[in-house]
């Protein structure tokens, strides 16, 4: 019952919010917050409860639709609800003066609802239905801003339709074979399916998940969509929505097929997992270096979203305890820090009047210290500096890769991390450090309501970094659910038997070292603050123009790597699209406009029919 309540509140709340917006803006905002808060509360209530409930019967397909809750779905559901709540909170200020707010809140809540629906659905049909609702409602919000966002939205929706149709094919095929769509029933049937059929199911279904998760050859929709969407929604997009792909992969690979079957799927050297690994590795490296040459704050983050997906893939593909845990944990971590970073980018956009080009910014640390700290912590999480959450998951993934004898995958992952260091620093440097441009001398810190989500997420990044045991417990429940070996964990990391990681030691080491250095620093002779003009120009006249070295920050490097970063996939799709258009244009020329030809078509068709029938 509680699941149905959740769904009803989620979907109904969206509609009610929309209607409330017609009455007053304030009421709408309050309702939106309340709805998302209620979802968070309700979902936390079903922690560790396994529920399965039929809620609907489709007469003509003779199907019962089921809602269920288990550790896997709970894990994703709480992420969705949490980020949903924070993004709504953030929107309150961010979206204040924008137009079509009713539409905005409605769609945002609706997307959250449909995402919740996908994770708590217990059969493939409702999974698919919610998935599709999610796809199109996302489109509505990606394109919301107009301008460049329109093309981005179209790109997204077409790719996601392709993906979901592939999934539809799989689902219907399963249904026609086994006469049911219940996940657990299909899972038991699949144990006896032939290898070929299993491969068909796996490959076709993963197409849609690869698209939504934006893995390398199918990533092209993501950078545009994320960069062009409004910032609170970008954070939802890249924190949660994109990661539905991981959920789907996990569902099909481990819940439906299971390890036994997966291990059988290989032809000599090449197996399904190795292909996925390759995709993941290429995604990581390619995305990291592409992000390096971007100059748009949100585009950098978007590319980093692409890249981080690769880590999760590398993690979950290897069905070892640490790999799986690392992958799932990385989903959570990435969701936290990328949402944080998009909030940061949004706050800067908000205060500077929509500036996204990081080269035009600089020195904002003096004006927006809270945002700066959030950005710093977020980027540290993204890189995986110890004491942030990203570190633990990456550590687990690396460990899996190295000990599983996949050094080249590990190498790709490492290189990706170094790319991340470079663009992460660039992000901070160009926006927050250095010279404060004249026109931003008077901007203020982000409003309190925007700070609140950022602070919460910042705290979470550190909290999960120091006490990774909390989320790892939830994740090991997922492992148990699909009969994979769970990873042993302690509150501060991994015990010695499973590979020893102890964050509390690291924390104390760093704190004490900092303290000692600080003491040293304090004892030394004092220093006086000076203006930039004084030190750089030695007090003489400097022109008031910009002399903050930002444009093309890694110039020598980008000169070397840009030739290799041509987005071949994107060009390829573009050509396909153009080709299709051309073919379509040729095809409609059959309707020549001359009635004589039309009459001829009719006669020819008749002749053809008679001819055909004579031979059958």
């Amino acid at each position, binding site marked *: 019952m509680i699941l149905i309540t959740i769904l009803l509140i989620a979907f109904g709340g969206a509609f009610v919010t929309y209607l409330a917006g017609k009455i007053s803006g304030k009421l709408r905002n309050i309702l939106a917050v309340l709805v998302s808060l209620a979802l968070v509360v309700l979902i936390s209530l079903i922690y560790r409860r396994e529920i399965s409930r039929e809620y609907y019967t489709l007469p003509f397909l003779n199907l019962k639709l089921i809602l269920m809750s288990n550790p896997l779905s709970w894990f994703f559901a709480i992420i969705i609800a949490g980020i949903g709540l924070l993004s709504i909170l953030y929107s309150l200020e961010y979206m204040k003066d924008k137009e079509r707010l009713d539409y905005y809140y409605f769609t945002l809540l609706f997307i959250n609802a449909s995402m919740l629906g996908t994770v708590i659905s217990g059969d493939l049909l409702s999974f698919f*239905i919610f998935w599709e609702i999610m796809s199109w409602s996302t489109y509505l919000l990606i394109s919301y801003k107009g301008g460049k966002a329109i093309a981005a939205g179209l790109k997204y929706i077409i790719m996601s339709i392709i993906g979901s149709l592939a999934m539809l094919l799989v689902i219907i095929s399963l249904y026609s074979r086994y006469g049911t769509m219940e996940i657990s029933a299909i899972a038991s049937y699949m144990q006896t399916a032939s290898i070929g059929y299993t491969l068909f199911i796996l490959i076709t279904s993963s197409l849609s998940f690869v698209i939504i998760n934006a893995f390398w050859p199918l990533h092209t929709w993501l950078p545009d969509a994320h960069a062009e969407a409004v910032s609170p929604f970008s954070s939802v997009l890249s924190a949660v929505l994109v990661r539905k792909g991981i959920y789907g992969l996990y569902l099909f690979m481990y819940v439906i097929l299971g390890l036994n079957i997966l291990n059988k799927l290989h032809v000599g050297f090449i197996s399904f997992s190795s292909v996925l690994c390759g995709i993941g590795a290429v995604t990581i490296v390619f995305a990291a270096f592409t992000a390096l040459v971007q100059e748009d704050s949100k585009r950098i983050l978007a590319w980093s979203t692409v890249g981080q997906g690769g880590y999760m893939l590398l993690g979950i593909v290897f069905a070892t305890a640490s790999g799986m845990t690392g992958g799932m944990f990385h989903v959570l971590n990435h969701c936290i820090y990328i949402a944080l970073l998009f909030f940061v980018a949004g706050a800067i956009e908000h205060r500077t009047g929509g500036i996204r080009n990081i080269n035009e910014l600089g020195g904002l640390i003096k004006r927006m210290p809270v945002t700066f700290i959030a950005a710093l912590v977020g980027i540290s999480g993204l890189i995986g500096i110890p004491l942030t959450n990203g570190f633990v998951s990456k550590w687990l993934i690396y460990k899996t890769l190295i000990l599983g004898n996949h050094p080249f995958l590990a190498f790709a992952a490492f290189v990706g991390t170094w790319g991340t260091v470079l663009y992460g620093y660039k992000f901070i440097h160009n926006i927050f450090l250095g010279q404060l441009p004249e026109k931003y001398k008077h901007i203020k810190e982000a409003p309190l309501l925007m700070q609140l989500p950022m602070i919460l997420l910042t705290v979470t990044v550190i909290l999960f970094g120091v006490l990774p045991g909390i989320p790892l417990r939830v994740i090991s429940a997922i492992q148990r659910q699909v009969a994979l070996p769970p990873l042993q964990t302690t509150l501060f990391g991994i015990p010695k038997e499973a590979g020893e990681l102890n964050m509390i030691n690291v924390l104390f080491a760093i704190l004490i070292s900092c303290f000692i250095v600080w003491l040293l620093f304090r004892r030394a002779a004092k220093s006086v603050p000076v203006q930039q003009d004084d030190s750089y120009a030695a007090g003489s006249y400097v022109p008031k123009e910009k002399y903050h070295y930002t444009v093309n920050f890694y110039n020598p490097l980008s000169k070397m790597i840009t030739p290799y970063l041509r987005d071949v996939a994107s060009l390829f799709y573009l050509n396909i699209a153009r080709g299709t258009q051309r073919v379509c244009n040729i095809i409609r020329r059959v309707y020549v406009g001359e009635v004589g030809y039309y009459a001829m078509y009719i006669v020819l068709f008749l002749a053809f029919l008679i001819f055909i029938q004579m031979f059958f």
Partner: protein
Amino acid sequence: MLSPVLLIAIPLGFSFLAPLLKKGAKYIPPIAMLFNLILSILLVPQVMRKPIIVLLGGGWPPPFCINLVASPLGILLALLISLVGFLVSIYAIAYIKEGATEKYHTLYLLLLTGATGIVLTGDIFNLFVFFEILCISSYALVAYNGDKHGLESAVKYLIQGSIGSSFILIGIALLYGLFGTLNMADIANNISYHSLQSPTLYVALAFFITGFGVEGAIFPLNAWLPDAHSSAPSTISAILSGIAIKTGVYAIARVTYTLFSAKGFMIFIATIGIITLLIGEMSALGQKKDIKRMLAYSSIGQIGLIIFAFGIATYYGIFGALFQLVNHALAKSLLFLASGYMIYRVGSKELSAFEGLGKKMPLSSLVFTIGAFSLIGLPPFAGFMSKISIISAGIKANNTALFVFVIIVLFATIIEGCYFFRVVQNLYFKKSRDPAHNCVRDGCPTTQKSEMPISALIPIIILALLIVAIGIYPRLVTGIIESAAIGLMDKVGYIHQILGIF
């Protein structure tokens, strides 16, 4: 006194009432259609139990006289016709203002009479006559605007249509020559009883498919459709797309399933359907300018899908086909109606003129979007349910060719998505080119809403609500569709019901 005869008699009678009333003529079609609607709804429970057979002309038992068969299939389609007809006629009250309006209403009712007759009759020649009523009135209605495009398309439509009807007539003559009867049940009985394999029979089938195919818009025969749909008044486009071509499809299904139970031929029907689907959808993608033409091509594609589903030749296939037929009728008439006033307001059929309409006509844009989503097959709209049933039927049939076809259907869906989302983005996300509407904030006047009149708005909102309702609660219609599908499959039962009156 609930007789299916009234379903035909009332629109026919009212249609000739219309020219007498001049001023009040525009209220005649809604009244007639409302009556039909209520009547067919009332007939539903009765028909679900047992089909009603009405004998016309002398009361001789079949096969000797013309009879009407109110089977679930017939009533389903009659219900659909009267529903769409009713809503479109309400829309027309405000929309049709110029020209000889009373003639419009007369012809309109005649068209619906024809359509209702086609789906209810049990006599092949009678079917032809109703078909001609439908065709002639639609030729005239296409030309109703009297502009050059309307006339051109009407003439072209007429030429192709009359060739098609001649072919139907030849088919009827051939059948009559073989069996000496015109009653469909009797013909079917004869064909299956004698299990005839004569080439004449095949030729007759070819003639029927070609003839009905012209009205039913299967691929090479549908050249009239984009022209006629795009240049007719939007109400007529809606009716043509929602009703007229559906009757053609119905006739094809009736002929192939009931008359000739041509099982081996069905895969061929499916192929034709797939080709129609592909050509229609791809042409729609290619058509970037004229929105009505794009919608017309999309109709071709959808008809292809329906025919494909009929061609699967299983119960599930027929069910999917009928379901899709209903949904497409609702959605496409919705789209044409919604675009009607949009075109009227922006004064152009160009797709680019629709930019930013979402602000000026919020409700119409919303319902347009709902219709488009339903046609693409996105949940939770009606189109999704029917599409999924067609696809599952195709896969369940366990036939490699059909599996390939299903993949093509999915591919066509992608194309559908491309062009419909192109419209949706124009409606909502592009800024209006008209500079007066461009500035949103301070200084300039706020965007003016120019929503369509309420009498036009109501029908399309009802259509949209129906689409959503069917999408969320498909049981609303699936019951009757199921029994209709069973009825169409059950040839022996059909023959028995009609000839069993002896």
